[in-house]
């Protein structure tokens, strides 16, 4: 039986904003898009703001209607990254294995450390206190036998909570919880589950696997396993980053394809830069397309590993042209790179063109590092519409 900790920084962006400006303490603070422009969503909000019904990913326009007296901030992303790194440095002092799941979430594997650290509950409390003392950041910790249980547990007693799910009690712990508590159950899955009468996680656990997987496919099998308290038990510390994505919400919805393709080109340029900065390459390229009526689709394609703007852009363009089928204006467009792996030199031996392009990107990246992102742009001839 493994012992996994999930440490989640409570209202992380807001906590950092309150360090930068302590006068925000105790006030409803919302980090995200500018409500005056009326576009975009909430990235994070304080517990005071949540009392007005606000939550992350809520359209900023709706948030402003519910909480007009809130303090709306655009946020200091670089500061968040610095604090996140500082938290990781603290955790590295104490945890044998760490996986950073996102900017404010960390998994740690303490399996076999019982004798070393004594009570896990006390140890979680020690980690919380250390982070609070050194960085003034509140956090919640969940402890469980796998990642899913630990993650659900950390969410149970927010803020500044600790939840320890005793091994063997996983199913009981989950039984009465609503199905949307399971990580990965979004609006669409929730609707489908509810339509079939699944409201509590216990409802899923009671159903026969065969029935459940015939209704929901592979995703259903995973859900059924999670409902029984099972999940991934091993961390992947080497792959801190799981994906890189960038999105753009238009100030005014756009119908002209050329404009959207230009935006895609700029987004590709940025995500590929991020990829190369971290010495990574991607093999799954995805797009996100949101129309003016909020209908959203995501599509992805797997290619051989690359970090080359041109290859990524060609795939993105293919995906976009194939899936942009409605004659409705586009509100948001995004590019998503996943299945990231470390860059391998070996692959490019004997491929002159690739080597030349790699050198070009190295030169571009070093110029950007020195003079800023906008100092140089990579040009790619746009493939013809029939491509």
């Amino acid at each position: 039986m493994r012992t996994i900790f999930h440490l989640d920084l409570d209202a992380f962006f807001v906590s950092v904003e309150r360090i930068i400006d302590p006068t925000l303490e105790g006030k409803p603070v919302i980090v995200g898009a500018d409500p005056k422009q009326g576009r975009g969503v909430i990235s994070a909000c304080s517990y005071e703001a949540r009392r007005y019904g606000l939550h992350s990913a809520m359209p900023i326009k709706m948030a402003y209607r519910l909480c007009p007296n809130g303090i709306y901030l655009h946020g200091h992303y670089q500061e968040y990254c610095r604090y996140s790194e500082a938290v990781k440095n603290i955790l590295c002092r104490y945890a044998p294995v760490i996986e950073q799941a996102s900017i404010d979430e960390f998994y740690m594997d303490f399996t076999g450390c019982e004798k070393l650290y004594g009570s896990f509950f006390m140890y979680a409390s020690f980690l919380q206190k250390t982070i609070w003392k050194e960085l003034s950041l509140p956090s919640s910790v969940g402890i469980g036998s796998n990642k899913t249980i630990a993650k659900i547990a950390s969410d149970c007693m927010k803020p500044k909570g600790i939840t320890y799910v005793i091994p063997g009690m996983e199913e009981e712990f989950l039984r009465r919880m609503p199905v949307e508590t399971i990580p990965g159950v979004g609006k669409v899955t929730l609707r489908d589950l509810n339509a079939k009468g699944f409201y509590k996680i216990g409802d899923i656990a009671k159903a026969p696997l065969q029935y459940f997987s015939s209704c929901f496919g592979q995703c259903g099998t995973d859900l059924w396993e999670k409902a029984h308290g099972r999940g991934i038990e091993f961390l992947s510390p080497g792959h801190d980053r799981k994906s890189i994505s960038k999105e753009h919400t238009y100030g005014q919805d756009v119908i002209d394809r050329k404009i959207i393709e230009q935006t895609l080109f700029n987004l590709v340029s940025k995500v590929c830069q991020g990829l190369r900065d971290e010495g990574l390459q991607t093999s799954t390229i995805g797009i996100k397309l949101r129309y003016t009526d909020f209908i959203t689709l995501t599509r992805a394609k797997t290619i051989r590993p690359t970090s080359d703007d041109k290859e990524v852009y060609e795939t993105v363009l293919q995906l976009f042209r194939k899936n942009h089928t409605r004659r409705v204006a586009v509100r948001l467009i995004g590019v998503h790179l996943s299945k990231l792996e470390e860059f391998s030199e070996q692959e490019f031996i004997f491929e002159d063109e690739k080597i030349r392009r790699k050198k070009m990107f190295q030169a571009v990246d070093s110029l950007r590092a020195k003079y800023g992102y906008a100092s140089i742009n990579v040009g790619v001839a746009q493939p013809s519409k029939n491509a």
Partner: protein
Amino acid sequence: MTKYYIGTAGWSYKDWVPNFYPKGQSKNFDWLQFYSRHFNVVEVNATYYAYLSPNSFKGWVEKVSSEEEFLFTVKLHQDFTHTRRFEEANIKAVRTNLDILAKAERLGGLLIQFPYSYAFNSPAAEYLRNLNDIFQDYNRFVELRHSSWNNPDAYDFFRELDISLCTIDQPQIGRSISFEPLITNSRAYFRFHGRNEAEWKKSISNYGKEQTYEQASERYKYLYSPGELVEIEQKIKQVEGKVKEVFVIMNNHPSSYGIVNAFELLFMLRRKDKLNIPESTLKAFPRLSKIAAA
């Protein structure tokens, strides 16, 4: 246990009124005395530009007499580091003043700061060895800004000389040395020049031109953010327990930004006890309220 000395480069800046020094000061008000009540070290930079009278040093010693642990670090005159033309009389002038502080047990050490152009090569190393011999009676801190000094041969050389290599933070332009603490003897010396990249670049292109004090200081005008300070704290803590003394000097003095960051690092690196921060500083920089004693 490592002892921290935290302060600023210089204390006599008009633009620190009223954000640090109060407005409408009485005749008896003394800036150094006021400063020494808040910080335990100051770096004397005026000695880089001029050979000061020994009476100035005696006066300073007198002014900080009520602060038991207060130290001065003294920057070596530019004749030794930039023009690199000096005579016996110059050495004597420097030593006389250092001896006044040393005798009063107020000397933290001598800061030997070379320009960016001073790269690592045999003549440069020999010159440094010579300077080191001249001033070997005092603690020596050498600041080198060119990244060529960032190599194991140079590190061995510093250890052999028993000289502390300053860890500096400045905008990363060209072949600037990076912000990575390195222990070369029993002391560590950190200098923070800010990260005002645009002004730093401008100052490089204006090098040698006539400039006002404000123009020359502009590149140091930078307030480190809380996130940057957290990074800095963790880097400094890497040397904790491995050296006897750590000096942390904020050279981002314009607009009293150095004072603000010095207060913050004082809180972060020492016992995390709340600090006595002047009311006017708190008013100008509300983020300090979290670390201020009620």
